[in-house]
């Protein structure tokens, strides 16, 4: 088990290296640079700045400089947010993004599981039809539209919740962002749970459990949930990845201090260091979470053992 985890971590290294390499060169091939703003800089000014950030060196040199820096934990400076190093930006934004993401992840997963299970148990009766329809809504409506709508309804019209912004401790400000982030995730979990739960409830071993007179609640809790979770758990990896992309929008619309929106703005501004830094981080987080998901998977499905 430990050896397995270790091997997984080791395989992560080439993946991260590959990601860095691809992103680095792709970004540099893209037209435009971090200093192509609305106003032309005088050539000597531009030369100064380029020298300051080592952009005047050959690309390969820059690449090795960057990789060497990353190996020492130095992600370099941000070329657009000049008062920050990439590491500091990430250091401030990451805890928030993780907190937001995990809260939404947990809320969405739990709500999705419950909703999916309720729908499955009531298959082809009104709670099922209702849930199947309700659950469609967050999946098909783009989240930026949804975010605008909830801001208007709950913030502007009803004055129930703050519309945006966040200061540490102001958890009310997180209700809407978490909602927007959690809804599509929860909806997908619900759909998957419903499907797999219906399948599990139709299996022979559930019939066996019923024949043992265990009672509906125990059957659901002990016999149905674990196997029904298997497809759900295998979705959680891609689902997390999707939560991250969702957090881009949510952070932007709700003015939250996470790292999600840096990625987009940095990609558009060609803030090379920030794009690379956030990408590496994302890949790491996702690989780590996939490892966790795999461990949970093995716990759920005894047939899977660590090889």
């Amino acid at each position, binding site marked *: 088990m430990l050896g397995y985890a270790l091997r997984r971590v080791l395989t992560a290294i080439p993946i991260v290296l590959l990601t860095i390499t691809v992103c680095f060169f792709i970004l540099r091939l893209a037209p435009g640079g971090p200093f192509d703003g609305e106003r032309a800089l005088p050539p000597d000014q531009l030369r100064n700045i380029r020298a300051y950030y080592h952009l005047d060196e050959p690309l390969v040199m820059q690449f090795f400089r960057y990789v060497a820096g990353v190996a020492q934990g130095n992600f370099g400076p941000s070329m657009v947010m000049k008062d920050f190093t990439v590491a500091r930006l990430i250091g401030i934004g990451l805890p928030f993004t993780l907190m937001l993401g995990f809260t939404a992840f947990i809320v969405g997963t739990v709500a999705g599981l419950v909703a999916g299970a309720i729908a499955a148990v009531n298959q082809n009766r009104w709670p099922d039809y209702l849930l199947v329809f309700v659950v*469609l809504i967050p*999946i098909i409506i783009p989240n*930026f539209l949804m975010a605008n709508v909830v801001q208007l309804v709950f913030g502007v019209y009803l004055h129930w919740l703050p519309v945006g912004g966040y200061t540490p401790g102001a958890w009310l400000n997180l209700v809407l962002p978490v909602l927007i982030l959690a809804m599509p995730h929860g909806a997908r979990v619900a759909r998957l749970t419903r499907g797999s739960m219906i399948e599990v409830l139709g299996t022979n071993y559930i019939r066996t459990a019923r024949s043992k007179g265990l009672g509906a609640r125990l059957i659901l809790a002990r016999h149905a949930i674990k196997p029904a979770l298997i497809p759900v758990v295998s979705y959680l990896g*891609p689902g997390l990845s999707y939560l991250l992309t969702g957090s*881009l929008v949510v952070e932007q619309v709700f003015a939250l201090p996470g790292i999600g929106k840096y990625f987009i703005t940095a990609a558009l501004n060609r803030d090379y260091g920030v794009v690379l830094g956030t990408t590496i981080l994302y890949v790491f987080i996702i690989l780590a979470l996939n490892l966790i998901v795999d461990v949970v998977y093995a716990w759920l499905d005894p047939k899977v053992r660590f090889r």
Partner: protein
Amino acid sequence: MAGITGKDATLTAYADALAAAPKGRSLTQDALRRLSRNKAALVSIFVLAALVLFALAGPYFLPWTYDKIDWSAIRKPPDWVKGHYFGTDQNGRDMLARTLQGTQMSLLVATVATVVSVVIGIIYGAIAGYFGGKIDAVMMRFVDIMYALPYILFVIILVVIFGRSPVLLFVGIGCLEWLTMARIVRGQTLSIKQREFVEAARAGGAGPFAIIFRHVVPNLTGPVVIYATLTVPEIILTESFLSYLGLGVQEPQTSLGTLISFGAPVAEALPWMLFTPAAFLVVMLVCLSYIGDGLRDALDPKDR
């Protein structure tokens, strides 16, 4: 994006079923029969077909084209006299005409991306499955890794490089979207290549690709159909996400995502700008979703 509709789980289960019951054709026929009994799915098919037809043919019957500016009606609510049945945008262009054009564009990019991913998926999966062994292990490990990557980030980088050529962009998205298809095809190939008739074909000198296309691909109708119903909405939503980021298609062309991302901020001031494209998107995706659900139920060999 991978997993928006949970298609992996669905399709993997279905592929297992296919591998277990290799009579692919009759399974598919069976499924169609079952599908025809699913009222929600049937209605959805008709509505979707009508919508697509309207999107394709509608523009020929409208008084305005999608790029024609009506200087006398800038940002005006619906006006039946002038023929702006769903109002105009801030450039005085007819919203209905633009929505129809946007629907065409969204369907086009979704189709392109889906076709690309199906093709790549079949080729990749078939190679992995047919040659097996080390090659298979390495290729499938690569797929696992790809699943782990946050590939919306790569999409954004692609957009940044490719600029705004929508077709090129969605070829790019298709190139990232093929993983599920590859897994299924591999599974199919693995099970089919064990069969006697494949041995016979091989003895008769048939090459791997002949075998794959004659014996594996015909069994994939079902998965491909489901895959398409589930992938199309994903791509449409991805496109709308990119539009929101300002990375959508070039004017005067438009897409549903672009229209919605312009309509969302003016939901109160110019509601008609949001309503029309949003209604099209919602109807289209609800239909696709019910069709997908219907197919999933229909193709599940366990008749519940």
